């Protein structure tokens, strides 16, 4: 897979001047809801990965919501039944192990160690035809090291019967697109690519610069799927984290209001991710 060098100027070409004139109509001051007004007019035929082993490569800047997403995915999918490898490559944030037993982690924080560990993990998944959820962490270098020697990693995995799923978690800051742009430029463009816009970082109308951006549009153009990650209210998130609870087990343990918030969030997550439900391991 050829990779084209990409410059900062290419990555960050913001619309301005005349381009602004072609912006969509002004958003009407509708009542606020938890629904996503910009949920895409998208999703033609979304790839069906049901029944296939798949490896999630969760990519994004630090504190963007990758771990929360992975916790949710682990609770929803086969990880809940103990059939999925969960791995935390992030040398700093390894909070997944608070919630999961048996999280795979690199032996040290050394970048080369992490890269080699990731390679061995993928090799294992291919050999065993097992699904995996991999938290690459903010500022990941391990995947890029691997792509440096194997830019066609996605195709090789497909050939071996394991579907790579690129899960880009993106906030409302256009700089959150850097990991997406660099990973795509490095040649990692799996057919199953998810652009997860995390509303924790801002309401949907704050994402307009991100969505208009050429890096985002290029990914959509090659078939990536846009998904909104609903906002779990900060109070509820803090309470759940403080007690280290699984989302699906909160019930009314934390009181009826927080319980209702978490249930509403779970429902919204289920709705938003329904187009890519078969991509969940």
């Amino acid at each position, binding site marked *: 897979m050829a990779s084209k060098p990409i410059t900062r100027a290419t990555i960050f070409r913001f619309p301005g001047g005349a381009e602004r004139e072609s912006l969509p109509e002004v958003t009407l001051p509708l009542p606020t809801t938890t629904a996503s007004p910009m949920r895409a007019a998208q999703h033609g035929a979304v790839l069906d990965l049901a029944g296939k082993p798949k490896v999630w490569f969760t990519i994004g800047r630090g504190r963007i919501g990758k771990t929360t997403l992975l916790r949710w995915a*682990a*609770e929803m999918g086969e*990880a*809940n039944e*103990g*059939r*999925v*490898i*969960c*791995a935390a490559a992030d040398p700093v944030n*390894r909070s997944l*192990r*608070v*919630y*999961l*037993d*048996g*999280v*795979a982690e*690199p*032996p*040290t924080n*050394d970048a*080369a*160690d992490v*890269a*080699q*560990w990731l*390679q*061995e*993990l*993928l*090799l*294992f*998944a*291919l*050999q*065993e035809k*097992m699904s995996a959820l991999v938290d690459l962490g903010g500022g990941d270098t391990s995947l890029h*090291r*691997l792509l440096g*020697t*194997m830019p066609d990693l996605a195709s*090789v995995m497909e*050939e*071996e019967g394991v579907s790579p799923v690129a899960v880009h978690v993106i906030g409302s800051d256009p700089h959150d697109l850097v990991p997406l742009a660099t990973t795509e430029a490095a040649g990692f463009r799996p057919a199953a690519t998810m652009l997860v816009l995390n509303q924790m970082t801002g309401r949907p109308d704050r994402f307009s610069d991100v969505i208009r951006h050429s890096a985002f549009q290029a990914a959509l153009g090659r078939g990536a799927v846009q998904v909104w990650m609903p906002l779990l209210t900060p109070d509820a998130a803090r309470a759940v984290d403080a007690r*280290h*609870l*699984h989302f699906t087990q909160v019930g009314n343990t934390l009181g009826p209001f927080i319980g209702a918030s978490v249930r509403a969030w779970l429902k919204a997550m289920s709705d938003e991710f329904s187009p890519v439900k078969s991509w969940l391991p």
Partner: protein
Amino acid sequence: MPARSLERIRQAAMSSRSTLYRWMQRNYDGFGAALAEAGRPNWKAITAELVADGLTDADGKPPSQEAVRQTWWKVRKAVEAARAKRLAPLSPAAPAVSAAVAPTPSPSGKAAGELPLPSTADAAPDAPKFRPARLRSQPHEDT
């Protein structure tokens, strides 16, 4: 899995390591024993031997004395961590599916010109074990 793909992945897996690192990893026990026996190893002489054998640093250059010491420190850290993990008992809830990447001892296959150290297994000592994770029944702070 076709052998071609496996081989490419193996090559990719090893490519992030210097030849020096890989040699130390392969010969971990023997090299470590020799250093322990020396007490205060002569790193200058050791470096000269390693360079003479053609081992290189991550940039493909002959390693400096300091680089040799640091590489050995990193290898020790990685190997010891991996061995500690292997010794840790598996969770009873975890299916035993991790054997596929457990180190497999094989003849050391020492190349001519390597340091005259005791022979060691050619296993990758820091090969991690992978197994499915499970939701903790009672999530808690770090273990």
